[in-house]
Protein backbone atom coordinates (compact mmCIF):
# COMPACT_ATOMS: atom_id res chain seq x y z
CA UNK A 1 0.00 0.00 0.00
CA UNK A 2 2.84 2.39 0.72
CA UNK A 3 4.04 1.95 -2.87
CA UNK A 4 1.56 4.52 -4.02
CA UNK A 5 3.10 7.28 -1.98
CA UNK A 6 6.75 6.91 -2.59
CA UNK A 7 7.06 8.09 -6.17
CA UNK A 8 6.68 11.75 -5.29
CA UNK A 9 9.11 13.08 -2.72
CA UNK A 10 6.94 15.92 -1.63
CA UNK A 11 3.79 14.04 -0.63
CA UNK A 12 2.90 12.67 2.78
CA UNK A 13 1.66 9.11 3.09
CA UNK A 14 -1.65 8.49 4.88
CA UNK A 15 0.30 7.54 7.97
CA UNK A 16 2.04 10.90 7.86
CA UNK A 17 5.42 9.65 6.62
CA UNK A 18 7.71 10.95 3.91
CA UNK A 19 8.81 7.76 2.22
CA UNK A 20 11.55 9.27 0.07
CA UNK A 21 13.23 10.68 3.14
CA UNK A 22 13.02 7.30 4.84
CA UNK A 23 14.42 5.54 1.79
CA UNK A 24 17.29 8.05 1.79
CA UNK A 25 18.03 7.08 5.38
CA UNK A 26 18.02 3.42 4.28
CA UNK A 27 20.68 4.24 1.71
CA UNK A 28 22.80 5.80 4.43
CA UNK A 29 22.34 2.75 6.63
CA UNK A 30 24.32 0.77 4.07
CA UNK A 31 27.18 3.23 3.85
CA UNK A 32 30.42 3.42 5.82
CA UNK A 33 29.87 4.53 9.40
CA UNK A 34 31.16 7.64 11.11
CA UNK A 35 31.34 8.52 14.78
CA UNK A 36 31.75 11.90 16.45
CA UNK A 37 32.56 12.54 20.10
CA UNK A 38 32.60 15.88 21.91
CA UNK A 39 35.26 16.28 24.58
CA UNK A 40 36.07 19.22 26.80
CA UNK A 41 39.10 20.23 24.74
CA UNK A 42 38.09 19.21 21.25
CA UNK A 43 35.85 17.20 18.94
CA UNK A 44 36.88 13.86 17.44
CA UNK A 45 35.54 12.44 14.16
CA UNK A 46 36.26 8.89 13.03
CA UNK A 47 35.09 7.37 9.77
CA UNK A 48 35.10 3.93 8.18
CA UNK A 49 36.39 3.88 4.64
CA UNK A 50 34.32 1.59 2.44
CA UNK A 51 36.41 1.85 -0.69
CA UNK A 52 39.68 0.09 0.01
CA UNK A 53 41.33 -1.32 -3.05
CA UNK A 54 45.05 -1.44 -3.76
CA UNK A 55 44.29 0.11 -7.12
CA UNK A 56 42.88 3.25 -5.54
CA UNK A 57 45.19 6.23 -6.08
CA UNK A 58 45.70 7.53 -2.57
CA UNK A 59 46.27 11.24 -2.48
CA UNK A 60 46.09 13.59 0.46
CA UNK A 61 42.32 13.89 -0.07
CA UNK A 62 40.13 12.26 2.50
CA UNK A 63 37.11 10.14 1.74
CA UNK A 64 34.98 10.87 4.77
CA UNK A 65 36.31 14.01 6.43
CA UNK A 66 35.94 17.43 4.89
CA UNK A 67 36.87 20.89 6.03
CA UNK A 68 34.06 23.39 5.65
CA UNK A 69 35.87 26.43 7.05
CA UNK A 70 38.86 26.99 9.32
CA UNK A 71 36.71 26.31 12.39
CA UNK A 72 34.23 23.67 11.12
CA UNK A 73 34.69 20.23 9.63
CA UNK A 74 32.34 17.37 8.87
CA UNK A 75 32.23 13.60 8.52
CA UNK A 76 30.00 12.12 5.85
CA UNK A 77 27.91 8.96 5.59
CA UNK A 78 25.94 8.10 2.51
CA UNK A 79 26.07 8.82 -1.22
CA UNK A 80 29.40 10.59 -1.83
CA UNK A 81 28.27 12.52 -4.88
CA UNK A 82 25.35 13.99 -2.94
CA UNK A 83 27.75 14.83 -0.13
CA UNK A 84 30.07 16.75 -2.47
CA UNK A 85 27.26 19.07 -3.52
CA UNK A 86 26.25 19.78 0.06
CA UNK A 87 29.82 20.28 1.22
CA UNK A 88 30.37 22.83 -1.52
CA UNK A 89 27.12 24.57 -0.53
CA UNK A 90 28.22 24.64 3.11
CA UNK A 91 31.61 26.08 2.18
CA UNK A 92 30.09 28.87 0.13
CA UNK A 93 27.55 29.65 2.87
CA UNK A 94 30.34 29.91 5.44
CA UNK A 95 32.35 32.24 3.23
CA UNK A 96 29.33 34.39 2.44
CA UNK A 97 28.70 34.87 6.15
CA UNK A 98 32.35 35.77 6.74
CA UNK A 99 32.22 38.25 3.87
CA UNK A 100 29.17 40.00 5.31
CA UNK A 101 30.05 39.94 9.00
CA UNK A 102 33.86 39.67 8.88
CA UNK A 103 33.86 36.89 11.45
CA UNK A 104 33.58 33.08 11.30
CA UNK A 105 30.04 31.70 10.95
CA UNK A 106 28.71 30.21 14.20
CA UNK A 107 28.58 26.43 13.89
CA UNK A 108 24.90 26.02 14.63
CA UNK A 109 23.97 28.66 12.09
CA UNK A 110 26.02 26.87 9.44
CA UNK A 111 24.36 23.54 10.25
CA UNK A 112 20.94 25.14 10.25
CA UNK A 113 21.57 26.87 6.94
CA UNK A 114 22.64 23.61 5.31
CA UNK A 115 19.69 21.75 6.82
CA UNK A 116 17.35 24.39 5.42
CA UNK A 117 18.75 23.55 1.99
CA UNK A 118 18.17 19.82 2.62
CA UNK A 119 14.62 20.49 3.84
CA UNK A 120 13.79 22.28 0.62
CA UNK A 121 14.22 19.02 -1.24
CA UNK A 122 11.55 17.39 0.92
CA UNK A 123 8.90 20.01 0.39
CA UNK A 124 9.07 21.45 -3.13
CA UNK A 125 10.77 21.06 -6.48
CA UNK A 126 9.99 17.40 -7.03
CA UNK A 127 13.66 16.44 -6.64
CA UNK A 128 14.74 13.59 -4.40
CA UNK A 129 16.35 14.31 -1.03
CA UNK A 130 20.12 14.07 -0.53
CA UNK A 131 21.21 10.65 0.64
CA UNK A 132 23.72 11.94 3.16
CA UNK A 133 23.96 12.28 6.90
CA UNK A 134 26.56 14.59 8.36
CA UNK A 135 28.40 14.90 11.61
CA UNK A 136 29.53 18.51 11.98
CA UNK A 137 32.34 19.34 14.40
CA UNK A 138 33.37 22.87 15.13
CA UNK A 139 34.28 25.64 17.52
CA UNK A 140 32.95 29.17 17.88
CA UNK A 141 33.37 31.83 20.52
CA UNK A 142 29.76 31.62 21.69
CA UNK A 143 29.43 27.96 22.56
CA UNK A 144 32.94 26.53 22.30
CA UNK A 145 33.25 23.01 20.88
CA UNK A 146 30.11 21.57 19.33
CA UNK A 147 28.98 18.40 17.54
CA UNK A 148 25.88 18.26 15.35
CA UNK A 149 24.25 15.42 13.45
CA UNK A 150 22.00 16.07 10.45
CA UNK A 151 19.99 13.71 8.26
CA UNK A 152 18.24 13.81 4.83
CA UNK A 153 15.04 15.23 6.28
CA UNK A 154 16.85 18.41 7.27
CA UNK A 155 16.57 17.64 10.99
CA UNK A 156 19.61 18.31 13.10
CA UNK A 157 20.53 18.04 16.74
CA UNK A 158 23.47 18.88 18.99
CA UNK A 159 25.10 15.80 20.44
CA UNK A 160 27.77 14.83 22.94
CA UNK A 161 28.46 11.67 20.94
CA UNK A 162 26.77 10.48 17.76
CA UNK A 163 27.07 7.85 15.05
CA UNK A 164 25.80 7.74 11.46
CA UNK A 165 25.96 5.13 8.71
CA UNK A 166 26.07 1.36 9.03
CA UNK A 167 25.36 -0.09 12.50
CA UNK A 168 24.76 3.34 13.93
CA UNK A 169 22.23 2.01 16.44
CA UNK A 170 24.79 -0.35 17.94
CA UNK A 171 27.45 2.35 17.95
CA UNK A 172 25.08 4.86 19.54
CA UNK A 173 24.18 2.52 22.41
CA UNK A 174 27.84 1.70 23.02
CA UNK A 175 28.64 5.40 23.12
CA UNK A 176 25.79 5.99 25.55
CA UNK A 177 27.28 3.43 27.93
CA UNK A 178 30.88 4.57 27.83
CA UNK A 179 30.65 8.36 27.34
CA UNK A 180 31.52 10.54 30.33
CA UNK A 181 30.76 14.27 30.40
CA UNK A 182 34.31 15.37 31.21
CA UNK A 183 36.03 13.11 28.73
CA UNK A 184 39.36 14.41 27.42
CA UNK A 185 40.23 14.54 23.73
CA UNK A 186 42.65 11.63 23.99
CA UNK A 187 40.07 9.50 25.78
CA UNK A 188 37.54 10.49 23.12
CA UNK A 189 39.86 9.24 20.37
CA UNK A 190 40.30 5.99 22.22
CA UNK A 191 36.55 5.57 22.73
CA UNK A 192 35.77 6.38 19.11
CA UNK A 193 38.29 3.87 17.78
CA UNK A 194 37.06 1.16 20.15
CA UNK A 195 33.41 1.68 19.29
CA UNK A 196 34.12 1.80 15.57
CA UNK A 197 36.20 -1.37 15.68
CA UNK A 198 33.36 -3.22 17.42
CA UNK A 199 30.68 -2.08 15.01
CA UNK A 200 32.65 -2.42 11.79
CA UNK A 201 32.02 -5.48 9.66
CA UNK A 202 35.62 -6.24 8.81
CA UNK A 203 37.57 -8.72 10.87
CA UNK A 204 40.83 -6.81 11.21
CA UNK A 205 41.16 -3.09 11.62
CA UNK A 206 44.03 -1.29 9.89
CA UNK A 207 44.70 2.37 9.36
CA UNK A 208 43.79 2.02 5.68
CA UNK A 209 40.17 1.37 6.56
CA UNK A 210 39.83 4.38 8.89
CA UNK A 211 40.05 8.11 8.91
CA UNK A 212 40.48 10.17 12.07
CA UNK A 213 40.17 13.92 12.37
CA UNK A 214 40.16 16.27 15.32
CA UNK A 215 39.11 19.85 15.93
CA UNK A 216 40.92 21.51 18.82
CA UNK A 217 42.52 24.78 19.89
CA UNK A 218 46.23 25.06 19.15
CA UNK A 219 48.65 26.53 21.69
CA UNK A 220 48.20 29.96 20.08
CA UNK A 221 44.45 29.76 20.67
CA UNK A 222 43.46 29.26 17.04
CA UNK A 223 41.07 26.53 15.96
CA UNK A 224 42.83 23.69 14.18
CA UNK A 225 41.40 20.92 12.05
CA UNK A 226 43.83 18.03 11.75
CA UNK A 227 43.50 14.73 9.93
CA UNK A 228 45.58 11.98 11.49
CA UNK A 229 48.31 10.52 9.27
CA UNK A 230 48.04 6.79 8.50
CA UNK A 231 51.28 6.13 10.41
CA UNK A 232 50.07 7.86 13.57
CA UNK A 233 46.73 6.13 13.21
CA UNK A 234 48.38 2.69 13.04
CA UNK A 235 50.36 3.46 16.20
CA UNK A 236 47.19 4.57 17.97
CA UNK A 237 45.31 1.43 16.94
CA UNK A 238 48.03 -0.72 18.45
CA UNK A 239 48.29 1.46 21.57
CA UNK A 240 44.60 1.22 22.34
CA UNK A 241 44.59 -2.51 21.78
CA UNK A 242 42.33 -2.34 18.76
CA UNK A 243 44.71 -4.14 16.40
CA UNK A 244 47.40 -6.65 17.00
CA UNK A 245 50.88 -5.19 16.54
CA UNK A 246 52.61 -6.38 13.33
CA UNK A 247 54.20 -9.79 13.78
CA UNK A 248 57.97 -9.62 14.42
CA UNK A 249 59.77 -11.04 11.36
Amino acid at each position, binding site marked *: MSRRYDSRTTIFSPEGRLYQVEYAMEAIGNAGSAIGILSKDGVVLVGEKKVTSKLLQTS*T*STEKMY*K*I*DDHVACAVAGIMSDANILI*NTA*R*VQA*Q*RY*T*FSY*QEPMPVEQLVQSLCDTKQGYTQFGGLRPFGVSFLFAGWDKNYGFQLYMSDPSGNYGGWKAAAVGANNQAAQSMLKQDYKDDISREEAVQLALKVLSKTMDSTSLTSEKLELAEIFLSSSGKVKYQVCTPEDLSKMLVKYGVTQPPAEA
Partner: protein
Amino acid sequence: MSIFEYNGSALVAMVGKNCFAIASDRRLGVQLQTIATDFQRIFKIHDKLFLGLSGLGSDAQTLHQRLVFRHKLYQLREERDMKPETFASLVSAMLYEKRFGPYFVQPVIAGLGEDDKPFICTMDSIGAKELAKDFVVAGTASESLYGACESMFKPDMDHEELFETISQALVSSIDRDCLSGWGGHVYIVTPTEVTERILKGRMD
Protein backbone atom coordinates in the same frame (compact mmCIF):
# COMPACT_ATOMS: atom_id res chain seq x y z
CA MET B 1 40.49 66.06 -6.94
CA SER B 2 40.43 62.59 -8.47
CA ILE B 3 38.77 59.75 -6.60
CA PHE B 4 42.09 57.92 -6.58
CA GLU B 5 43.58 60.78 -4.57
CA TYR B 6 40.77 60.94 -2.03
CA ASN B 7 42.41 58.82 0.65
CA GLY B 8 46.08 58.99 -0.38
CA SER B 9 48.38 55.97 -0.55
CA ALA B 10 51.84 54.76 -1.44
CA LEU B 11 52.71 51.17 -2.34
CA VAL B 12 55.84 49.55 -3.63
CA ALA B 13 57.02 45.95 -4.14
CA MET B 14 60.54 44.83 -5.04
CA VAL B 15 62.18 41.58 -6.06
CA GLY B 16 65.35 40.35 -4.38
CA LYS B 17 67.35 37.14 -4.45
CA ASN B 18 64.84 34.39 -3.57
CA CYS B 19 62.80 36.92 -1.65
CA PHE B 20 60.55 39.90 -2.15
CA ALA B 21 59.54 42.99 -0.21
CA ILE B 22 56.25 44.88 -0.22
CA ALA B 23 55.79 48.20 1.56
CA SER B 24 53.12 50.84 2.04
CA ASP B 25 52.51 54.07 3.89
CA ARG B 26 50.12 54.21 6.85
CA ARG B 27 48.06 57.32 6.30
CA LEU B 28 44.34 57.32 5.69
CA GLY B 29 43.02 60.76 4.88
CA VAL B 30 39.83 62.40 3.70
CA GLN B 31 41.34 64.78 1.16
CA LEU B 32 43.70 66.87 3.23
CA GLN B 33 42.52 65.82 6.69
CA THR B 34 44.32 62.86 8.25
CA ILE B 35 41.90 60.36 9.79
CA ALA B 36 44.11 57.38 10.68
CA THR B 37 47.84 56.77 10.98
CA ASP B 38 47.75 52.99 11.11
CA PHE B 39 45.74 52.08 8.04
CA GLN B 40 46.44 48.62 6.65
CA ARG B 41 46.96 48.54 2.88
CA ILE B 42 48.91 45.30 2.59
CA PHE B 43 47.07 42.05 3.23
CA LYS B 44 48.39 38.52 3.58
CA ILE B 45 46.54 36.05 1.40
CA HIS B 46 48.74 33.14 2.42
CA ASP B 47 52.29 32.72 3.72
CA LYS B 48 53.84 33.31 0.30
CA LEU B 49 51.38 35.78 -1.21
CA PHE B 50 50.72 39.39 -0.29
CA LEU B 51 48.34 41.89 -1.80
CA GLY B 52 48.65 45.65 -1.54
CA LEU B 53 45.71 47.86 -2.50
CA SER B 54 46.18 51.58 -3.11
CA GLY B 55 43.47 54.07 -3.98
CA LEU B 56 40.06 54.44 -2.36
CA GLY B 57 40.22 52.89 1.11
CA SER B 58 36.67 51.55 1.08
CA ASP B 59 37.15 49.78 -2.26
CA ALA B 60 40.49 48.41 -1.04
CA GLN B 61 38.85 46.84 2.00
CA THR B 62 35.87 45.47 0.08
CA LEU B 63 37.99 44.04 -2.71
CA HIS B 64 40.25 42.40 -0.16
CA GLN B 65 37.23 40.80 1.55
CA ARG B 66 35.97 39.46 -1.79
CA LEU B 67 39.38 38.04 -2.60
CA VAL B 68 39.59 36.31 0.78
CA PHE B 69 36.20 34.75 -0.03
CA ARG B 70 37.42 33.44 -3.38
CA HIS B 71 40.78 32.32 -2.10
CA LYS B 72 39.34 30.43 0.89
CA LEU B 73 37.02 28.47 -1.41
CA TYR B 74 39.93 27.77 -3.76
CA GLN B 75 42.00 26.47 -0.84
CA LEU B 76 39.20 24.19 0.35
CA ARG B 77 38.52 22.75 -3.10
CA GLU B 78 42.06 22.45 -4.43
CA GLU B 79 43.58 21.63 -1.02
CA ARG B 80 46.50 23.95 -1.69
CA ASP B 81 47.35 27.66 -1.75
CA MET B 82 46.89 29.74 -4.89
CA LYS B 83 49.99 30.52 -6.92
CA PRO B 84 50.74 34.26 -7.26
CA GLU B 85 50.31 34.18 -11.04
CA THR B 86 46.90 32.57 -10.67
CA PHE B 87 45.91 35.06 -7.99
CA ALA B 88 46.93 37.96 -10.20
CA SER B 89 44.69 36.59 -12.95
CA LEU B 90 41.83 36.30 -10.45
CA VAL B 91 42.25 39.91 -9.32
CA SER B 92 42.42 41.07 -12.93
CA ALA B 93 39.23 39.18 -13.82
CA MET B 94 37.37 40.52 -10.78
CA LEU B 95 38.36 44.09 -11.61
CA TYR B 96 37.31 43.76 -15.24
CA GLU B 97 33.90 42.41 -14.16
CA LYS B 98 33.28 45.94 -12.93
CA ARG B 99 34.52 47.54 -16.13
CA PHE B 100 31.74 50.15 -16.25
CA GLY B 101 31.57 50.86 -12.54
CA PRO B 102 35.08 49.98 -11.36
CA TYR B 103 36.74 49.57 -7.99
CA PHE B 104 38.91 52.66 -7.55
CA VAL B 105 41.99 50.72 -6.54
CA GLN B 106 45.37 49.92 -7.96
CA PRO B 107 46.56 46.54 -6.65
CA VAL B 108 50.13 45.40 -6.15
CA ILE B 109 50.58 41.63 -5.90
CA ALA B 110 53.77 40.05 -4.59
CA GLY B 111 54.44 36.40 -3.94
CA LEU B 112 56.78 33.43 -4.15
CA GLY B 113 55.69 31.13 -6.95
CA GLU B 114 56.88 27.76 -8.16
CA ASP B 115 60.27 26.86 -6.65
CA ASP B 116 59.98 30.01 -4.52
CA LYS B 117 60.67 32.28 -7.46
CA PRO B 118 59.64 35.87 -6.56
CA PHE B 119 56.70 37.26 -8.53
CA ILE B 120 55.43 40.82 -8.53
CA CYS B 121 52.84 42.60 -10.61
CA THR B 122 50.55 45.59 -10.57
CA MET B 123 47.45 46.46 -12.56
CA ASP B 124 45.22 49.41 -13.23
CA SER B 125 41.74 49.76 -11.81
CA ILE B 126 40.17 47.67 -14.57
CA GLY B 127 42.63 44.81 -14.43
CA ALA B 128 45.36 45.48 -16.98
CA LYS B 129 48.27 43.44 -15.63
CA GLU B 130 51.80 44.74 -15.66
CA LEU B 131 54.41 42.14 -14.78
CA ALA B 132 57.82 43.41 -13.78
CA LYS B 133 61.09 41.77 -12.94
CA ASP B 134 62.39 44.45 -10.59
CA PHE B 135 59.82 46.64 -8.86
CA VAL B 136 56.23 47.89 -9.10
CA VAL B 137 54.69 51.00 -7.54
CA ALA B 138 51.20 52.37 -6.97
CA GLY B 139 49.38 55.19 -5.24
CA THR B 140 49.48 58.98 -5.08
CA ALA B 141 53.24 58.89 -4.50
CA SER B 142 53.85 56.64 -7.52
CA GLU B 143 55.77 59.19 -9.59
CA SER B 144 58.27 59.81 -6.81
CA LEU B 145 58.42 56.07 -6.16
CA TYR B 146 59.30 55.34 -9.79
CA GLY B 147 62.23 57.73 -9.58
CA ALA B 148 63.44 56.51 -6.20
CA CYS B 149 63.20 52.82 -7.11
CA GLU B 150 64.83 53.28 -10.51
CA SER B 151 67.89 54.84 -8.94
CA MET B 152 68.13 52.71 -5.80
CA PHE B 153 67.25 49.28 -7.18
CA LYS B 154 69.85 46.61 -7.89
CA PRO B 155 69.00 43.06 -8.95
CA ASP B 156 69.60 40.07 -6.64
CA MET B 157 69.75 41.89 -3.32
CA ASP B 158 69.54 39.73 -0.23
CA HIS B 159 66.68 40.30 2.18
CA GLU B 160 68.54 42.71 4.48
CA GLU B 161 69.77 44.93 1.68
CA LEU B 162 66.32 44.72 0.07
CA PHE B 163 64.75 45.97 3.29
CA GLU B 164 67.09 48.97 3.39
CA THR B 165 66.49 49.79 -0.25
CA ILE B 166 62.72 49.54 -0.22
CA SER B 167 62.49 51.48 3.04
CA GLN B 168 64.64 54.34 1.70
CA ALA B 169 62.69 54.44 -1.54
CA LEU B 170 59.36 54.47 0.29
CA VAL B 171 60.25 57.07 2.90
CA SER B 172 61.87 59.51 0.49
CA SER B 173 58.90 59.29 -1.91
CA ILE B 174 56.32 59.64 0.85
CA ASP B 175 58.04 62.78 2.08
CA ARG B 176 57.40 64.38 -1.30
CA ASP B 177 53.70 63.54 -1.27
CA CYS B 178 51.31 65.39 0.98
CA LEU B 179 48.66 62.69 0.79
CA SER B 180 50.81 59.76 1.95
CA GLY B 181 52.92 59.48 5.04
CA TRP B 182 52.79 58.81 8.77
CA GLY B 183 55.39 56.08 8.60
CA GLY B 184 55.68 52.89 6.62
CA HIS B 185 54.79 49.22 6.81
CA VAL B 186 57.33 46.83 5.27
CA TYR B 187 57.01 43.08 4.76
CA ILE B 188 60.08 41.07 3.77
CA VAL B 189 59.19 37.55 2.62
CA THR B 190 61.66 34.71 2.13
CA PRO B 191 60.82 31.03 1.58
CA THR B 192 61.25 30.40 5.29
CA GLU B 193 59.89 33.44 7.07
CA VAL B 194 57.92 36.64 6.89
CA THR B 195 59.23 39.75 8.67
CA GLU B 196 56.97 42.70 9.28
CA ARG B 197 58.50 46.04 10.24
CA ILE B 198 57.05 49.46 10.96
CA LEU B 199 59.05 52.46 9.77
CA LYS B 200 59.02 55.78 11.53
CA GLY B 201 59.24 58.64 9.05
CA ARG B 202 58.14 62.25 9.05
CA MET B 203 54.89 62.11 10.97
CA ASP B 204 53.06 64.46 8.73
